């Protein structure tokens, strides 16, 4: 019923795991000697840190898709924009230590014979400014894009496809060297962040903990939003948008608000991702990346938040594992995993967990009713 508890038992477990990881991982990687079996290598720390960023992206996506039925096939764009904002800060940190030793310009501008720093780059030497951009750029784009689209009542696949068009257009734009963001190569070869060597084990551990914290915070925010009456209106919109309007709710405001919030979360995820993987380039805008993010959510369990995060970590871990161990056959395994999850775990992994932990609960109906937003073909609805 209304005003449920914000954090379920599952949510608390999830937060506890994150807090524990945020504390334990730095200890295991910094204080435990490398020889010890409990030592965590920089490789492992960074890898898991990356998964956590993906998990935050998945969480952001689940917020709009799972609860409000907005299937964004362009969420990677917000992630990438956040990443670029962070990347630009990191580039400016290099200063005169670049290949061409130019104190004013990043290397790629020097070798393309540029002379002045483009306006878009101004201010990025400041960490505060850059962090503000991490939130503002994706947030503003989502707000403008979302406000117009939702006001025009673009829904369902139409919305999905224009979000895809958005990220695709950004992909092509960022490929262009003229854009001034490093073209296809993007931004890379970072040196330090806030004065700390970006490659040192300490910085890595700190970035890891920051990712844990961001994910935890993102989760608490998302859980609070979904537990509020606002969240229930979102679900109402998801299931019967026009009915919600007839009750007097301004659907476009709700959608734009949650879309913007979600985009900002994705931006933060991207910003944390970049220093850990060491590169940001237009490939992050690829539509396939955004589709994959949707898939993480579906694998974990749509509309569960925790499941989305879990799905992101699991699928990516699977990818890492399979590409290393079965480089020639990993696509069979990953593809098979996706097919298997849909066929055998219709509510995602978390659905399975639910079924196993609460065996006496009534079985879910064989055919879940289709929410109107999912209806690809518009369904006939009341007069």
């Amino acid at each position, binding site marked *: 019923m209304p005003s449920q508890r914000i954090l379920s038992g599952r949510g608390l477990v999830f937060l506890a795991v994150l807090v524990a990881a945020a504390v334990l991982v730095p200890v295991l990687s910094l204080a435990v000697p490398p020889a010890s079996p409990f030592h965590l290598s920089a490789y492992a720390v960074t890898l898991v840190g990356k998964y956590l960023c993906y998990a935050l992206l998945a969480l952001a996506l689940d917020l709009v898709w799972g609860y409000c039925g907005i*299937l964004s096939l362009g969420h990677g764009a917000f992630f990438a924009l956040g990443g670029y904002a962070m990347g630009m800060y990191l580039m400016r940190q290099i200063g005169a230590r670049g290949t061409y030793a130019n104190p004013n310009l990043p290397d790629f501008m020097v070798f393309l014979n540029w002379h002045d720093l483009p306006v878009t780059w101004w201010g990025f030497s400041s960490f505060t400014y850059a962090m503000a951009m991490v939130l503002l750029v994706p947030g503003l784009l989502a707000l403008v*894009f979302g406000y*117009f*689209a939702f006001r*025009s*009542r*673009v*829904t*369902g*696949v*139409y919305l999905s*496809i*224009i979000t*895809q*068009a*958005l990220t*695709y*257009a950004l992909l*092509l*734009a960022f*490929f*262009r060297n003229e854009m001034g963001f490093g073209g296809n190569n993007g931004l890379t070869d970072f040196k330090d962040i806030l004065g700390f060597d970006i490659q040192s084990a300490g910085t890595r551990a700190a970035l890891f903990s920051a990712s844990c914290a961001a994910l935890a915070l993102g989760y608490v925010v998302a859980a609070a939003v979904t537990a509020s009456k606002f969240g229930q209106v979102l679900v109402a919109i998801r299931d019967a*948008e*026009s009915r919600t309007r007839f009750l007097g709710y301004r659907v476009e405001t709700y959608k734009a608000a949650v879309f913007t919030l979600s985009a900002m979360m994705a931006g933060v995820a991207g910003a944390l991702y970049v220093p850990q993987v060491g590169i940001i380039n237009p490939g992050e805008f690829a*539509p*396939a990346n955004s*589709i994959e993010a*949707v*898939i993480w959510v*579906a*694998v974990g369990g*749509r509309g569960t938040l925790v499941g989305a995060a879990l799905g992101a970590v699991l699928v990516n871990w699977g990818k890492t594992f399979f590409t290393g161990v079965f480089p*020639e*056959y990993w*696509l*069979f395994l*990953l*593809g*098979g*995993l*996706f*097919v298997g*999850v*849909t*066929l055998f775990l*219709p509510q995602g992994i978390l659905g399975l967990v639910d079924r196993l932990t609460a065996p006496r609960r009534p079985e879910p109906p064989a*055919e*879940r*009713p*289709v929410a*109107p937003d*999912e*209806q*690809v*073909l*518009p*369904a*006939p*609805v009341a*007069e």
Partner: protein
Amino acid sequence: MPSTRIVAALLALLAGIGAGLGAARAAPVDDALAHFAADKFPETDVGIDALVASGAPTAPAVLGALSDGRLFFDPGSRKVYVVDAAGTLDDAATGAKAADVTQGGLKKVRLNNAIRSKIAAAVGGLDLVSPDRTKRLAAADTAFAAHDAKARGAVEAALAKEEDPAIKAMLVQARAAIVAASGTGPEAERLDAIATLKARGDGDALNLVDQAGAAPDASPAVKAAAASAAAAIRFTLAVWQALQNAWYGLSLGSVLLLAAIGLAITFGVMGIINMAHGEMVMIGAYTTYVVQQALASSALGGASLLVAVPAAFLVAGAVGIAIERLIIRHLYGRPLETLLATWGVSLILQQLVRTVFGADNRPVAAPAFMAGSFHVGGLEITAGRMWIVVFTVGVFAALQIVLRATPFGLRMRAVTQNRRMASAMGISTGRIDALAFGLGSGIAGIAGVALSQIDNVSPNLGQSYIIDSFMVVVFGGVGNLWGTLVAALSLGVADKFLEPFAGAVLAKIAILVFIVLFIQKRPRGLFALRGRAVEA
């Protein structure tokens, strides 16, 4: 083809028209041929001149062989041989069979583009008086393109003899081109040339008119005539250019349509977010490859593409049916999960093809009827593209008939609109679903046949069309086949009108932005179904 050309050249030689070629008949052919055996381009170049000058009866044959890469030499003896079409060796000097020599010890006389051009010019001069009409026409065309002052005599000689009006006109143009390009000669002749070129009205003519106008000693009258002719030609060209862009747009649009049309069924009508659609296209393309390989040596080799169409339909359709029965079937009522499952299927199919055929591209040859291009006025239309447009129209029409005029089409639409009720009406939903998905996949496979003609046949083929396909179906309005048609064509045309001044990348970005904005205006696509029936 080469052999007829040689015959023609020979006839010309024997008739003694080769502008002084006959006189030098006694010159030692062997000397000329020796240059070919030096295995150096400058020597080869000299050899060609010497051979033409020698007037040897075997010269055309040798030159033909050289340009076709059939001229060999023995590095030891420095003797030169021609390999004829049947693969036997002839002594280049005498034309006699060289029975005692084998190809194994011989080296090919190497060619480059400069040499190819030279041979073409040498052989082309001979062709101007060939008895073969098409050959003369081609030679006149070449003479126009080359507008080489040295050829003026040959052109005029040919003009005097020529009776065919089309060729005559072409020769007149060639002479005009020579006059215009040379920038010399009496004023009347120049004005005449400008008028001829203005009537021709293409890009080459424009260049030549400009050259005539810019000649150092051009009189004011010539200058004025050239300027007005240039303006007139520019206008004509602009008109043709617009038409040309429209054609490019149409042909791009029909490729988009072909790629999207199967998706218009599996996604548009059935509501399955079919991420494996591109892979069905890919399977069609690989089927084309396999069919072509299998038929390569058989009598059907030339028609392999025609065989590939039904084959691709069946193969992709069968794969589609298998996917439907094994996976999709369990997902009706959960449309979003089809996204997840078909994405998985798409990964599996890509890797499967990569494992079976390898990661690299497979070659698919174009049949003769799809090669080359032809002109309609100032329009250049490439045969391959034209056939794809025709093919697309055919597929579209056939599909419309199936969907609108057969019980299957009606049942399919009923099933996808309300599965439970359709079943209660006695429609076997399982069968219809499988067939419908099979149909959509089969059509995607057919698209693959056409795409194998213009794109890579590689495991990634499908990936490059999937986004565009969804874009087209959605832009047109989901569930509306006509919408898909109009969307594909208009996106194609818009792209091709933007590309010339925005560049390919910006044009593509502009199109995407346009789609985003357009959907704001029409949130259910171009041809949105309206009314209570579709209200959500």
